[in-house]
C-alpha cells in the first residue's frame, strides 16, 4: 500500500473580488493598498489534499504548502496551514515583488517546484490549474513534464485507491467529462468544481502559528529564474460598444466585410 507525500504549490494573487487596474505609468498592475489572497484554485488544491487525508486514514504522510515570491508571499502560507497543511515552505525571490510579479514566469516556477519536489520525496503534487492574475494554465503541465510524472489537469474529481496506488481523475473537457486512470507519481491540477473549500475554524488559525515554515532560495535549488519574456504593453481591454442585429446571412456577411473582419 502506498503512502502519499503531497506537495501543494500555492500562489498569492490579487483577491478575486477586486477589480485590477493598470498603474498610471502603464507598466504594471496597481498593487499598492490592494487586497491579496490565496488563488482560489490553489485553495481548492489544499482542500483536496486535506480531504484525501480524511478519506484514507493513515495514507497521507504529509501535506506541504509551498510558494515562491518575496517575503510577503508567506502571508498565504498561514491560511494553507490553517486549512490543514502540515508544514509550509517559501522559495524566496526578493527581486520579484508584488508590482513586478509577472516577471516570475510559469517555466521558472515549474523549474523551482521540480527542484523542491525532487528534494522533498513527494509522490503527488496537487495545484491550481491556473492563477487568476495571468491565467496561464501552464505551470502544472510543465512541472509534470520536467519531473517525468503522470499528469491529470483540470480535475473535477479525484479518486485514489491506496491498495493499487491508482489515481482516477475526472477532467472537464470541451466535449464533456473524461476520466483518466494512472499511477503515482502524479501532478494533478484542480478545476473549480473539484470541491468547495471549508471555512477555516478559528482554533485552526491559531494552531497554524505553531506549524513550521522553511525558507529556501532559487540558488539553493539550483534554478535560474530570469524571465524569458518582456512585457511590451499593458492595456485595458477596449470598452464594449453596442452591436446591431442583422436580418439575414447576406446582411451579416456584408456587415463583416464593412468592418474589415473578413
Amino acid at each position, binding site marked *: 500500500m502506498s503512502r502519499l507525500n503531497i506537495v501543494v504549490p500555492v500562489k498569492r494573487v490579487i483577491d478575486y473580488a477586486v477589480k485590477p487596474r493598470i498603474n498610471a505609468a502603464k507598466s504594471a498592475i496597481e498593487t499598492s493598498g490592494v487586497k491579496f*489572497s490565496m488563488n482560489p484554485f490553489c485553495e481548492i488544491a489544499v482542500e483536496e489534499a486535506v480531504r484525501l487525508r480524511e478519506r484514507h486514514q493513515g495514507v497521507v504522510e504529509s501535506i506541504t504548502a509551498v510558494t515562491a515570491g518575496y517575503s510577503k508571499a508567506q*502571508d498565504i502560507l*498561514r*491560511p494553507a496551514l*490553517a486549512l490543514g497543511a502540515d508544514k509550509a515552505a517559501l522559495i524566496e525571490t526578493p527581486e520579484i515583488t508584488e508590482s513586478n510579479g509577472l516577471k516570475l514566469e510559469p517555466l521558472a516556477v515549474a523549474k523551482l517546484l521540480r527542484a523542491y519536489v525532487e528534494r522533498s520525496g513527494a509522490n503527488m503534487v496537487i495545484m491550481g490549474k491556473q492563477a487568476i492574475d495571468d491565467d496561464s494554465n501552464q505551470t502544472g503541465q510543465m512541472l509534470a513534464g520536467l519531473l517525468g510524472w503522470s499528469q491529470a489537469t483540470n480535475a473535477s474529481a479525484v479518486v485514489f485507491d491506496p491498495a493499487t496506488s491508482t489515481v482516477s481523475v475526472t477532467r472537464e473537457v470541451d466535449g464533456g467529462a473524461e476520466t483518466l486512470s494512472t499511477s503515482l507519481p502524479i501532478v494533478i491540477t484542480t478545476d473549480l468544481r473539484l470541491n468547495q473549500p471549508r*471555512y*477555516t*475554524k*478559528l*482554533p*485552526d*488559525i*491559531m494552531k497554524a*502559528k505553531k506549524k513550521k515554515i522553511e525558507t529556501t532560495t532559487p540558488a539553493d535549488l539550483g534554478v535560474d529564474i530570469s524571465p524569458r519574456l518582456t512585457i511590451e504593453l499593458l492595456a485595458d481591454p477596449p470598452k464594449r460598444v453596442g452591436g446591431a442585429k442583422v436580418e439575414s446571412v447576406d446582411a451579416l456577411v456584408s456587415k463583416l466585410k464593412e468592418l474589415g473582419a473578413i
Partner: protein
Amino acid sequence: MAINGLRSQVAIAKNAVWLERNSTHSSTYKRLFSIAATTAAANNGHAAGTASILEFDDDVNMFRDMVSRFCQDIVQPKVREMDEAEKMDPEIITAMFGNGLMAIETPEEYGGTGASFTAAISIVEELAKTDPSVSVCNDVHNTLVNTCIRKWGSEDLKSRYLPQMATSKLGAFALSEPSSGSDAFALKTRARKLKDGGYVIDGGKMWITNGAEAEIFVVFANLAPENGYKGITAFVLEKPWGVKVVKKEHKLGIRASSTAVIAFDEVHVPASNLLGKEGAGYKIAIECLNEGRIGIAAQMAGLAQGAFNRAVSYVYNDRKQFGKFVGEFQGMQFQIAQAATEIEAARLMLYNAARIKDNGGDFVKEAAMAKLYASQVAEKVASQAVEWMGGVGFTREEVLEKYFRDSKIGSIYEGTSNIQLQTIAKLVQKRYTN
C-alpha cells in the same frame, strides 16, 4: 500602554542596571529585565510596531477574512427572512459553533481558540457589517457569558461549562428585570440558601438577549436583600432545571435576535453552580458590563460600516441622475466624507479601549465613550444611508433600512446613553475637583 505600565518598565530597567553593577546575581536580573521587555512587546491583537490602532496582527486579520466569507456565504442570504420572521435561523448558530466563533477568548484547554479580546470584538464588528442580530448573539455569548464563567468560575464550573459553550450550547446574561434596568441593583429576583448548601432562585428577568435559544444562563439574584446590592449573587443555571421562556418581544430592530422575558419558579441550583462569591454579584455585573460596552461599540461600528458600504457603492456605481452618478454631487460627497470620518473616529475609540483592556489598564471611561459615540454614529449613518439610496433604500427588499431600525437599540441596551454620559461626567468631575 498605560503610563503606569511604562513607568514600571523603566523602573525594572533601572533596577536591572543598578543590580547588575552591584550584585553578584546580575545574570538573574538581566534575564528578568529581558522577560519584562518581551512582555511589553506583546501586542494582544494589534500588529507590532505599526502606527495605527486599526492595524491588527495576522491572527485577527485571518479571523476577519474568515468571518467576512462566512457572512457572505452563510449569513447574507438569510438576513431578510430572519428579520421578517423575527427568528434567528438555528443553522447560523450551529455554523458559528462549528467554525469556532463561540469561544474566542476561551483557553485552548477548554476547547476554545485562546485569542485576545481585540480578536473577539473584531469578529463582532465583522458580523455586524452583515447582520447586527447575529453579531449581538455572538457578542453576548462571548463577551458576557463566556467571560463571566472564565473569570469568576471555579475550576469545576469552567471545566463543566466552557467546553459546552464552545461547541453547542448558547448562553444568556440575565440581569435586567421589569423594574430594574439602569438601576440594575434594584433587582428583585431572590435566592434562598438551603441547608444542604444549594440555592433556590425565584423571580423573573426581562430583555434577555438569546433568551429563547440559550441553554446556559448567568443569573443575578439577591441572597440577602437586607444588605441591599451587597446581597446580589451570580449563579450559572441550566435551562432544564426550570428556566421558563415566558415571552419573546416583537421589536423595532435586531428582530432576529431573541429578546425574552424569562421566569424562575423555585428553581434549584446546586452549591457548585455559585459563580464567584456570595454577595459579589454586583462587582461581577459591573465588570462584565464595562467589557460588554466595548462589544456593543464594535457592533454599532460594524453596523455603520455595513450601511455605509452598501449605500456608498450604490451612489457611485448604480444610480445616475441628471447625467451623473448621484454620489458625484458635492452635497452627497460632503455627507459621505463626514460619515466616513465619524465611523473612523468610532472605530479608533473602540479599538483603543480594547487595547487598553488587553494590556491590563483602566478602561472604564474609554469604554463608556466608545459605546456612547459608536451608537450615535450608527444611528446617524444608517439614517443617512437610507436617504442616499432614496426610494430603493426605503424598501425592505433592499435590506438597507434594517440597519436604520437596528441602530436604535445601540443607545439603549448594555447601558443607556444617559448612563454612559453620567459615567463619563462623574470621571471628569473627579479629575477636575480640587
